[in-house]
């Protein structure tokens, strides 16, 4: 039984529970609704909830735990001798899983039956070609030990699945029947089912905490593994970034940090003045016709996915900057550069800055503007000398939020900034950022336990801490500012 059908069966049981529970409530009250504590549907609901929820939770936990447990028991059986040179046991496990999958396919297609499989021995039969027939390609011939492990894996998996189906269905049935039998007219069914629902609501809001725990936990755990293989001081203070596939890599964080900050700086240099001026112009000067056209247009920019900006940088802005500015001035020949990525990222951040500043400028009390005009100041003087100082904390907050966005932005820099880790001042050179390197270290077929892969987690952790502190700081400033005028 697949988990999908299992879920459907449990839900069907819950539906049956609902109707029988409702009927039983009415019957026990001798068809007199006044004798019941709650509406009959609440009796049904309580049975349905007790039938479905514990069983589904159990199923979820089972799906999570079973593969881990089976893997642990199989991985112990694989002798060191069958692990290929320079490989890891986890790679052998991949083969084991594929073979097991292939055996399942062979049976599903009716080529062999269960008995043939249990008699099958890798020393006598060409397992590889048999598996290739059902579309499972293996890199090398199958060793008898590995094949034995795969058979065991399959057996354990099948047994586990059977146990899962039985246990889940039994849970649903037993708890459901218990909930059904305890229905009495005096039972406070509404309170029970409402408490149950409330527990579900709390559970849903815990997802946010679980996500944070998951992020922090996975980043910390893998980063610690990395720092065990590679000294942290060298990671944070070395200026050499040079990953090698055959070990002996240098992971100096500084060139990446420099590229990240440089690109973000260019982006903010574009976005902050323009975004701020747009907010000021639309709030203080623009007529309603211009505003009703310009505001949605700028907001559309905010809804465009970053991959679109990335492509724009790659095919339009990059070549344009190279052919018209960098090459004539002799500054470089690369179409991907800090300038390309920074400029496009700046455009992406314009609506972000302008909508945040718009809120802030609008929340400056009208009385302050009126006071300034009353003293004879012009509109621009009012903006510069009254509104902006009053809105400054909010604008700083917006600036920090935009900086955090710029630092964490990925697709624009992947397509626009290049991949060369270098410390350079020339903005028309290709440089690289933290996010680009996370992508390049984690895509492609690298072995998971090597420092070349694990470094991405250390980069991710640093990035996370960086953006988080910027956000916390920004929210703190904005909140403090809000209190002033409300």
């Amino acid at each position, binding site marked *: 039984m*697949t988990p*999908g059908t299992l879920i459907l069966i449990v839900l069907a049981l819950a539906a049956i529970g609902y109707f029988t529970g409702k009927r039983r409530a009415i019957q026990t009250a001798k068809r007199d609704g006044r004798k019941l504590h709650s509406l009959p549907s609440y009796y049904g609901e309580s049975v349905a909830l007790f039938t479905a929820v514990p069983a589904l939770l159990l199923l979820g936990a089972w799906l999570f735990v079973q593969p881990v447990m089976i893997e642990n028991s199989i991985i112990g059986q694989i002798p060191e001798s069958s692990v290929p040179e320079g490989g890891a046991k986890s790679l052998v496990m991949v083969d084991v899983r594929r073979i097991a999958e292939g055996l399942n396919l062979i049976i599903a297609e009716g080529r062999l039956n269960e008995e043939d499989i249990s008699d099958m021995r890798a020393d006598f039969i060409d397992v590889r070609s048999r598996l290739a027939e059902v579309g499972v390609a293996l890199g090398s011939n199958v060793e008898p030990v590995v094949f034995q492990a795969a058979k065991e894996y399959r057996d354990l998996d099948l047994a586990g699945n059977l146990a899962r189906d039985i246990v889940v269905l039994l849970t649903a049935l037993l708890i459901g029947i218990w909930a059904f039998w305890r229905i009495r007219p005096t039972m406070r069914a509404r309170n029970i089912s409402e408490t149950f*629902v*409330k527990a579900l*609501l709390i559970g*849903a*809001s815990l*997802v*946010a*905490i679980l*996500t944070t725990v*998951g*992020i922090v936990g*996975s*980043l910390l*755990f*893998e980063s610690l593994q990395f720092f065990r293989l590679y000294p942290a001081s060298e990671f944070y203070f070395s200026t050499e970034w040079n990953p090698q596939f055959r070990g002996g890599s240098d992971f100096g964080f500084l060139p990446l940090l420099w590229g990240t900050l440089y690109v973000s700086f260019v982006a903010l240099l574009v976005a902050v*003045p323009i975004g701020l*001026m*747009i907010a000021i*112009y*639309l709030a203080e*000067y*623009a007529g309603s016709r211009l505003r009703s056209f310009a505001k949605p*247009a*700028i907001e559309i*920019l905010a*809804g*465009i*996915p970053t*991959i*679109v900006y*990335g*492509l*724009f940088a790659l*095919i*339009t802005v990059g070549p344009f900057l190279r052919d018209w500015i960098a090459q004539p001035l002799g500054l470089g020949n690369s179409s991907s550069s800090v300038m390309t990525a920074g400029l496009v990222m700046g*455009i992406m951040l*314009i609506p972000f800055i302008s909508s945040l500043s718009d809120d802030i400028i609008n929340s400056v009390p009208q009385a302050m503007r009126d006071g300034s005009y009353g003293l*004879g100041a*012009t*509109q*621009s*003087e009012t*903006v510069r000398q009254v509104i902006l100082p009053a809105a400054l904390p909010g604008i700083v907050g917006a600036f920090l939020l935009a900086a*955090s966005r710029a630092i*964490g*932005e990925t*697709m624009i820099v992947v*397509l626009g900034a290049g991949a060369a880790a270098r410390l350079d001042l020339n903005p028309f050179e290709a440089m690289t950022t933290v*996010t680009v390197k*996370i*992508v390049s270290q*984690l*895509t492609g077929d690298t072995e*998971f336990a090597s420092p070349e892969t694990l470094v991405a*987690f250390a980069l991710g952790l640093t*990035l996370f801490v960086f*953006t988080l502190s910027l*956000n916390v700081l920004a929210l703190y400033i904005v909140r403090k500012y809000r209190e002033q005028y409300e």
Partner: protein
Amino acid sequence: MTDFPADQSAASGASGRSLLKVGERTRKRNAAEKRFRMMGLAAVIFGILALFGLMASILSNGLSSFTQTYIALDVYLDPEVLDKGGNRAPEDLGRITTFTIQPLIKAAVQDLIDETGVSAEGVNANDAFELISKEAPAELRRFVLNNPDQIGETVSFDLLASGRIDGYYKGRVTMESAALDRNISPEQLDLADRLKTEGVLETRFNWSFFTAPDASDTRPEAAGLGVAILGSAYMMLIVLVLALPIGVAASIYLEEFAPQNRFTDLIEVNIANLAAVPSIVFGILGLAIFINFAGLPQSAPIVGALVLTLMTLPTVIIATRAALKAVPPSIRDAALGVGASKMQAIFHHVLPLAAPGILTGAIIGLAQALGETAPLLLIGMVAFVREYPAAPPEGFFDPASALPVQVYNWTQRGDPAFVERASGAIIVLLVFLLIMNAVAILLRRRFERRW
């Protein structure tokens, strides 16, 4: 009104300044005012121009991907070549390779040239064969396997022209560039032109761009978005099914039930921070937890959807809470007053009234998730996937691609024809986003209630 001379009090007699004459200082101030205004206008114009520039760049590069050049060819499906045994048995037909089919197409091309008499000097049958996409033998093979009874007959096919020929009619390849190109020669382009006048070669709407799977590096003309669109659709389905109930449930708890205490604060801070975590960090989470720890398959829509769900949750929660807050307390009070429990008041009265706002927020969250790329790169969705995922629910675990990832994938290929494809894919993506946002705006307009 404010450009009125501000220093009129000083403008009397002694200094020789007059109310009627604009003083030096006033002129300066008014000029500064004008400059400031111009700067503001320039900023607005820059923003709008950036939007138009972006759109123009994508459209001009991508619109051509919706048309494609085809060559009509009558191919004789020679039984001598395709089915030596003569029994049409599926096992024997399964051994047909694209190599065995190539000569059939070559022969057909030769026939075509002989028949129409368009042969050009310096172009032999081999060169003419190169006008046809490398995908064509595979297409023929599929046809033969599906229709074994047609073997021995002459069947007319509309075969894809090669990427260079297609590019020639879209302005990407010119006679000059062809002279320098190893893959195509000016003579071949000449032949293509003659075929076009014969009506054999024609350019028309490219349906397969929406339905075909991705194709390898050397055949951009065959690459399509089918798998990516399907993968994105699967992910959006799961995101909707997971993020909407969880987000609504969490918002109801936080907005209506949660007591003011440390624990609630902790949840609120968490949600605010999750909204600001860089998307790539969610990708790392997906890789570490869902793939490495839970053992879910790489490149599967289910993993992408779980990651995107976690990313979308803050958006849904923020929108839902705003919608719940907008329902006036009098509704709750009235329900409680006639004896409803708190849960009944919320589920029977507040929630239905807040539904349009919640749906709007959910659609906007979905639109964000649809365009998200970075986390999907990390969970292996960049893999080259040619097989369509199966029907749900099994298909959720099959490898698939996603629209934005397909765009990234194509930008990494060498052939310039893929830039056109990538831009075309972006147009498809933007059209989907436009539809979703339009639906959200319509929902808001139609059902929003002002209290």
